[in-house]
């Protein structure tokens, strides 16, 4: 990393990281700048003039896992309502202002954070940031949009219940996390959403949106000198500190369980998994390589080879390491016709066991490392995607030098590392499996 001093805010010493990317002689560089504002905000910026537009992603730490039990759904509801009227602009006029100026403004909540996206043409930049400022600081929560959004959330819950994949995922989380907020399912939300009052929504906004839990990534046609005042104007009036919060700790306990949720569909959708490991674990990169070889690598993974390529049992089968603030899991998905789903699951368990019992080949290891290091940039195909990466890196406290550090850490993984972490993590006899469908030849755990 090198430091540089640019523009009128240089007293704040902005960190700059030049990323050398690409492989071999195709390498070139993009520059991430850490921007600090007079009001104490920090943002990561990549200036890019390819297209006259600006994409900003931002997130407040603390997500829907903080919803009180009897107000489950409040974060979701707020995310739908912030652009439904703010300041002197009721819903229709606020939306009109956005749409007439082609400004995309959206909010979403995850378990651990509350995020937003702003995308605008350069010419409407000031207006776009002003509308965001209004949405964050003076949302109206008028009766009509609140009622409408509650109905829409309820309808969304109903619609998700139609999709086997959503049902399976939600049941798996409930099974593994129990009464912890990570295990709450949408049925709970359906019971509480009607009871959420405008005061609850306002309290959420006042307590949760602050400068000390805010993370910002900006990519596009904007200089540091242009961005700094916009950031202060948009976020500078937020309270210094969010209401303190802490999601309770939770332990993922591996257990041998098969749960069947009966549905009259021809194909059973399966979610399977167990405890994972955090990104701070020294073996995280070995686990990343291991996961790629086993089930992460699209059609080239062992699971895809056994289940899909050789036998045609599924269109998609894959695994992911998923990290939350308070828990980490390794999760997989497969969907196979009812009569053959038991065979798919047997093959998956066998691969789970093989990964722990037998070393991967050198060529599997090399291929995985080459993909994981080389592909980091090829997925960054729009300003929005790049801005999301900038926010994600900050949410995980990874630092600006992470991209280069990560590639070195992956390159250092050995065959023995992979086997060690596989032995530690993968317990084929203790998988939690949720099946949604009418599976044949499967015995559910009593």
């Amino acid at each position, binding site marked *: 990393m090198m430091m540089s001093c640019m523009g009128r805010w240089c007293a704040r010493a902005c960190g700059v990281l030049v990323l050398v*990317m*690409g*492989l071999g002689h*195709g*390498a*070139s560089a993009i520059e991430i700048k850490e921007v600090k504002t007079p009001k104490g905000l920090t943002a990561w910026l990549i200036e*890019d003039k*390819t297209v*006259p*537009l600006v*994409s900003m992603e931002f997130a407040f730490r603390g997500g829907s896992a903080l919803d009180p039990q009897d107000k489950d759904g409040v974060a979701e509801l707020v995310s739908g309502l912030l652009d439904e009227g703010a300041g002197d602009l009721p819903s*229709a006029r606020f*939306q*009109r202002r956005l*749409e*007439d100026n*082609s400004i995309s403004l*959206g909010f979403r909540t995850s378990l651990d954070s509350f995020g937003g996206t702003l995308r605008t*043409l350069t010419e409407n930049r000031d207006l776009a940031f002003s509308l965001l400022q209004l949405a964050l600081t003076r949302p109206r929560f008028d009766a009509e949009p609140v009622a*409408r959004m509650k109905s*829409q*959330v309820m*309808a*969304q819950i*109903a619609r998700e*219940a*139609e999709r*086997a994949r959503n049902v399976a995922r939600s049941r798996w989380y409930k099974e593994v996390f129990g009464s912890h907020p990570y295990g709450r399912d949408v049925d709970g939300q359906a019971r509480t959403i009607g009871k959420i009052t405008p005061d609850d929504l306002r309290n959420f906004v006042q307590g949760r949106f602050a400068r000390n839990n805010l993370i910002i990534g900006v990519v596009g046609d904007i200089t540091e000198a242009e961005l700094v005042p916009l950031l202060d104007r948009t976020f500078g009036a937020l309270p210094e500190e969010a209401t303190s919060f802490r999601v309770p700790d939770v332990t993922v306990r591996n257990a041998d369980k098969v749960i069947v949720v009966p549905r*009259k*569909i*021809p*194909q059973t*959708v399966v979610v399977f998994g167990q405890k994972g490991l955090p990104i701070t674990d020294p073996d995280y990169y070995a686990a990343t390589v291991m996961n790629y070889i086993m089930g992460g*690598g*699209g*059609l*080239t993974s062992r699971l*895809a*080879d056994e289940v*899909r390529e*050789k*036998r*045609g*049992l*599924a*269109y*998609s089968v894959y695994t992911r390491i998923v990290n939350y603030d308070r828990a980490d899991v390794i999760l997989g998905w497969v*969907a*196979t016709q009812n009569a053959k789903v038991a065979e798919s699951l047997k093959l998956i368990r066998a691969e789970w066991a093989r990964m722990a019992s037998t070393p991967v080949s050198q060529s599997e290891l090399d291929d995985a490392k*080459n*993909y994981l*290091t*080389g592909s980091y*940039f*090829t*997925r*960054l*195909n*729009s*300003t929005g995607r790049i801005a999301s990466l900038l926010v994600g890196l900050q949410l995980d406290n990874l630092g600006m030098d992470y991209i280069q550090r990560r590639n070195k850490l992956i390159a250092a993984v050995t065959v023995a590392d992979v086997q060690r972490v596989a032995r530690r993590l993968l317990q084929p006899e203790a998988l939690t499996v949720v099946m949604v469908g009418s599976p044949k030849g499967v015995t559910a755990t009593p």
Partner: protein
Amino acid sequence: MTFPSNVSPHACRAGFGAWTRRLIAAGIFAVAVIVGTAGASRAAVFNPRTFTLANGLQVVVIESHRLPVVRQIVFYRVGASDDPPGKSGLAHYLEHLMFKGTKVMAPGEFSKVVARNGGRDNAFTSADTTAYYQTVSRDRLELVMRMEADRMANLTIAPEEAVPESKVVVEERRSRVDNRPAAQLDEHVAAALFMNHPYRVPIIGWQHELEKLTVEDARAFYKQHYAPNNAILVIAGDVTVDEVRPLAEKYYGVIPANPSIRPRVRLAEPPQHAARRVTMRSDRVREPRFARDYLAPSHSTGETAHAYALELLSVITGGGATSRLYRSMVIEKKIALGVDTYYDADQFGPAVFGFALRPREGTGLDVAEAALDTEIRSLLEKGVTAEELAAAKKRMLASAIFARDSLRRGAVSIGVALTTGQTIEDVESWPERISAVTLEQVNAAARYVLRPERSVTSLLLPDDPGARARDSRRERSLTGRAPKEQNR
């Protein structure tokens, strides 16, 4: 094929699929972005450079130097609607088999080589187009050009690879269609809306035909349609036309043209005279939905002069929270939770202009339908306003700028245009043509398209006891509407 492979839904199937909680949000993107794909102009949207090799391969280069990354896409002028009768799903099945090896590449090696070079690859099949793409760092462009050119000419299809892959495609069908009531209904809507045109057959194919596809079928289809003079090569990203030209000559230029390639001729739709109605009840449905699809001209088929006006009409009626239908049906009358208008003019054959809505709890689909009919009547009688048209134009012109943000968008827009009978000039002058549309033209297009006798109304309902009896009573009470038995 690949994972997660991607059968681009034809517009007529977009009805239920694209819904999010804020339908409208989906609406904006579904409309403005699809439209925007055809993107921008005098300021020229994508500024592509193009040349054609002696063997007929058209090459398009779109420069974007943000990152040292390139995307290659090869489009073939063949899609699911070219499946021979009785062999539905063949174009898409072949797309999967294209990853199963050539004279010099082992089965599965293509994706492995791309991945080991830090790249990503996939493919998609639509009714009109089949496309294969890779995203790699710029120094790996030559590698993927060599491999893609290889499988344009040298595909080998081994039976031991083809048999499990046909099972994969059947599982894909189960995932995409059979497990989802809304997707099952969409198949019935397409079959009802298109009386003769092959858009009536699903891209992924009917299961009973899919299961019978053979290696010989795939080989014959490949031989007939895969050739440089039936393809478009698009390279987008950190590269110049001068860098691409010698590589294109070297790898693609040596592939002989197929002299038997002829322009596609598709079965045409006859005049339609009867409104159709399709109802599906399923105990898997949790939320009722309603849609109305009208047969419409595209940029290539029918009264194409209406196409630009219809793109604007779809934004005015259903594009976002300020659109007519959202304002009236969702906010004012509180009949619906979401409404959507869809229209994708980038079709080789006819297009679909459609409305979909999700009623508010406690509101019957009959009430929702009556409200939509009122809106359509008012639209036809009074027309859209100058303000509505101006706002829609402004948004669509902006969408042409946003379209340049991703490497994918420009490459796909141009490839789709060129494989559906349009030209690069059509794409690049899209903003000018949108700007030139008049109020009278929008209103004329609405009157031309929104005719009951060329429509299919579809209802997706939760199953409940006694519902069928109520249905039949209501069918009888709705004058001027065909009961569902009249579909064929």
